[in-house]
Every structure is written in structure tokens, then in C-alpha cells.
């Protein structure tokens, strides 16, 4: 059946039309026949499990961008981000030339192919989680999660595009000759115009990207009466390239290549969640509150457990040693054009206090 309904928000459907529609619906469904409903006893009901939603994208491909104007100046596709002002008051206009999610071997977005996102046995999940299982006491937590990390015996190396089973803790598999894999090529090519100056291009491409183990958890804080969250972003790619050449990037000599790129970013944890708010002047505020200071005498002068209140000492010991609270950035090799700068590691970053507040520069 093919129904094309054109609606506008101005449209107010008269009540008689609604009744007619509802009537037609009931007529159709009542003619299908009824099956008897039986009540379940307590034992049967206790077997019922509520579960979250698993989401997998099969043979997925996404592409949007901005086309070069034709002879008459018309553009078939436009994708613009605007409304930003530079510090000297000029309008900043970002033209997104190409944004894509594609299968591997896309050659920087030129040959788009399909890719699976998430595995049927380890999908993307939207779930309401019991907070007690993840360290958020007595709360129901809404969780959006990428495929979870797995036991290294059942997983694949997170970075290598030719990883085999048992090589690492990522669940998503790289593409092989007979399977499209679960690691997409993603890219964003954009032109940033400040006022009339259209010279700035920024093109970012990630090959065989993996975000396994990432999640966003949201819940409510009773004391502050506010939405709080916890954000973990894992991003692995064997090759992340950034260049600022022309839009096509065909004749680009100074590509910045980040080989074997791994970012594990943790913003907020069970003890210091992220708070989201808008202040009275209409500015967006993101805050990670500082952890409470120990009271005098709770931690001994020598800082050892023996001279301190044990529970307090254990609390701070856990806070400063738990690797889940820390962010890491590792780059296997950093190169610009034909120059290699070697590898880089920033490990064990702990956010102790963070406050980001947007400001309106308009007069």
C-alpha cells in the first residue's frame, strides 16, 4: 500500500476526520479475529526479563555534503553550519563539503561502500541500567552504549585493520575479502569562512574507525535537581589524517598522518559526574565538580593508611589509582608530509575539575 500524506504544522485535522480514521482502523483490525488472553501466575511473571534495545545497522552508508555550484550558480546539495561569530565580530560560516560513513577502502570518501555498525551478538544498546551495578547508587541510569569490550581471547585488536580473532579486546571486526566488517571509514571535509575569507579548508579522515567501549550515561541528581552524566569515548583508527589543502585534497603535499591512533577519553565518573545546565544569561554550562576534600585528621600527616581513617584513605586510593577514571591518548607515529616525528603518548589524565561556559560575543 502506498500512501503519500503531505502535512504542514498549520494543518488542523477536523474532529470528524479523526473519528472516521479511527473507525476505519478499528474496522480493519476487528475483522482479523481475536485470540484468547490468559493471565500469568507469579512464577511465570518472574521469568519475564525487561531488556534494553539492541541496534545494528546493516550494510549502512551515509553521505551528505555541498556541491560546487553549476553554470547558473545553483547547488544540488548544501550542508552549512553557521551562526558562529569570530572574536573580531565577523561571521564564521562552515560549509561541510562532505560528511560520510562508509565501508573500508573508501579512499578518503571517494568510493563509498556499505559497512555494518554493531554486531548482532554485541550491538549498540539503548538501555535503562540498574545504577547499583555501575556505581551510581539507587538510580536508574539511561545508557547509550557502543559495542562493549570483550575478553581478549574472543576479541580483535582495536587498531589493526587486519586483526584476527584473539588479538585484542574490541568486538568490532575489520573488513576481510569476504566480509564488509564493522569498522567504518568516516570523514569530514569542510571549508571554514571567516567573513569573506574562504581560504581555510580542514579535512579529517579516519580509516577503519572503532568506538567500542564508548558510552553516554544520564541520570538525575536529587540534591542539585539537575541532569548529570558520564561520558566515555574510545576512538581507535590505524590512520587518522588531517590536511588543510584544497577541497578535493587531490594535490595535497602536507597531509598530517596520525598512525595507530587511540583515544580513550573519560569525562565524568561515578564520583564526579558531569553536570549540564544553562545559566540565567542563556549560556550553556558543562561542569565536572571537584571531589570533596578530606576533613582534617582523616588522612595522616605521612599520607599512609596506618595513620589515616581507613575508609577515607581507601576512597582516595581508589580515586587516584582507578584506570577507568583516566583518559589516554596514544599515537603510533606522527608524520607531516614525508617527515616522521615518532610516537606520542599522553596517559593517565585525570579531570579533577572542569567548567565550560559558552559566552555570547554579540554586542
Amino acid at each position, binding site marked *: 500500500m502506498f*500512501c503519500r500524506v503531505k502535512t504542514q*504544522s*498549520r494543518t*488542523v485535522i477536523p474532529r470528524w476526520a479523526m473519528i472516521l480514521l479511527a473507525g*476505519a482502523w478499528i474496522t*480493519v483490525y476487528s475483522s482479523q479475529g481475536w485470540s484468547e488472553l490468559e493471565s500469568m501466575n507469579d512464577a511465570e511473571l518472574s521469568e519475564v526479563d525487561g531488556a534494553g534495545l539492541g541496534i545494528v545497522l546493516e550494510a549502512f552508508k551515509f553521505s551528505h555534503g555541498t556541491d560546487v555550484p553549476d553554470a547558473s550558480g545553483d547547488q544540488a546539495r548544501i550542508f552549512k553550519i553557521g*551562526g558562529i561569530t569570530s572574536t573580531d565580530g565577523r561571521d564564521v560560516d562552515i560549509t561541510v563539503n562532505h560528511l560520510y560513513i562508509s565501508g573500508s577502502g573508501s579512499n578518503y570518501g571517494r568510493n563509498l561502500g556499505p559497512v555494518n555498525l554493531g554486531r548482532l*551478538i554485541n550491538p549498540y544498546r539503548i538501555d535503562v541500567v540498574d545504577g547499583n551495578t555501575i556505581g551510581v547508587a539507587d538510580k536508574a541510569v539511561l545508557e547509550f552504549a557502543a559495542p562493549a569490550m570483550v575478553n581478549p581471547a574472543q576479541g580483535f585488536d582495536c587498531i589493526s585493520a587486519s586483526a584476527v580473532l584473539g588479538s585484542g579486546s574490541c568486538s568490532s571486526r575489520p573488513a576481510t575479502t569476504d566480509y564488509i566488517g564493522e569498522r567504518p571509514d568516516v570523514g569530514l571535509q569542510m571549508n571554514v569562512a571567516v567573513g569573506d575569507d574562504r581560504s581555510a579548508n580542514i579535512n579529517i579522515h579516519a580509516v577503519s574507525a572503532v568506538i567500542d567501549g564508548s558510552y553516554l550515561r544520564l541520570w538525575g541528581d536529587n540534591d542539585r535537581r539537575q541532569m548529570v552524566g558520564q561520558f566515555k569515548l574510545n576512538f581507535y583508527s590505524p590512520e587518522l589524517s588531517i590536511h588543510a589543502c584544497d577541497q578535493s585534497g587531490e594535490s595535497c603535499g602536507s597531509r598530517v598522518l596520525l598512525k595507530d591512533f587511540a583515544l580513550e577519553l573519560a569525562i565524568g565518573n561515578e564520583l564526579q559526574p558531569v553536570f549540564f545546565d544553562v545559566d540565567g544569561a542563556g*549560556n550553556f554550562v558543562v561542569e565536572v565538580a571537584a571531589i570533596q576534600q578530606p576533613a582534617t585528621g582523616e588522612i595522616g600527616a605521612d599520607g599512609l593508611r596506618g595513620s589515616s581513617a581507613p575508609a577515607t584513605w581507601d576512597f582516595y586510593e581508589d580515586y587516584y589509582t582507578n584506570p577507568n577514571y583516566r583518559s589516554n591518548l596514544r599515537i603510533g607515529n606522527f608524520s607531516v608530509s614525508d617527515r616522521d616525528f615518532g610516537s606520542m603518548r599522553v596517559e593517565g589524565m585525570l579531570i579533577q575539575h572542569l567548567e565550560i561556559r559558552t*559566552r555570547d560575543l554579540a554586542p
Partner: protein
Amino acid sequence: MTTNAPAIVSLLICAVALSLPGQATAELKRLDDQALGDVSGQGGIYLSGDVSINELGGPIENSYFGGCDDTTRKCGARFAYRLKENGGWMVLDDIRGNFAFEGLTLRVRTIDSGFGGDGELFKRDVLELGLPNTVRFNDVRFKIAASSTARPTDPGFRQTDIFSVGMQGEVVMEGNLLVFPAGNP
């Protein structure tokens, strides 16, 4: 009250078409539980859509909202939500434009093969939403903003527009979205 006659007519045509299951009318017989137990759902839904949001302007006319030909006022829809008791509001503002798609499909599918070997392990039913390959955007715009009050006409209104997005043309969106129960009980 404003009405849109073509929209009502097309809705009615759909309603009438839905209520006529076939060309000929045959006698309906009641199925017993046993017979019903053998019936399995087949087929699915094929949808084409054309959605316009405030293409020419919304229904409200006041000091802030107005027609799209009036450059001093905003004609898009506004959606505000608050993250803190007595706090400010996050706003999706000036939402307008038109998007259309053909061939969005919805069906239940049994997966027991494929997916690089995962299909055989999975062996269950999923809800499959077949993406329409391309979605046509016609001057779709919206702004992300933060505001001191829910409505722009409330006293003390102040707003910071963080950024705006404009989209036009055909967006490639291929593949199938598979949805199934998973996760923690």
C-alpha cells in the same frame, strides 16, 4: 481555525483504501485458537513520506514569531527543554523546512545466517527498518541555542545561539536498521 483541504482529502483516500482489504468481498469466518496459532505475520510496510515543518511559517503571530517573509521575526518551530530545576533552557530553535523520502520499509525478519558468522549464533527475529537510500532535504534549517526562559515572549528573555545548521539536497542513507531486545534485564 486553518485547514488544509488537500491533506484531509489524501488522509481520507488512505483511510478508505485501508478499509477495503481486497477488490472482491468474501465471507469472513472466525478462526479458532489452533488455526490462529498457525498464522504467522508476513510482509511489511512500505512508506513514503513528505514532511514539512513551518515551510511558510507557524501558526503563532506575535512580537517574536511571524511569517517567513518577515525578516525581523522568526518563522520556525521552537523546542525548549530544561536540564536543571529553575535553570535555563536548551533550545532547538527556528526549525523549518521540508524533507521527503520514498521506500522506507518496516518488517520482521528472521536472521540465522550471514553477518560474518554472527547470524547463526544469533538465530532470532529482528525488526528491520529499511532506510530509504536517499532523503531529499529542501531548505531544512535549525539552530541550537541556550535560553534563559522557555518562551521568547517571557519576561527576562535572553538567548545565546550556539550554531545553526542548514541542509539542502539528497542525503545518501542506505542500509537496514535492525532493532531487537538486548542488554541487562
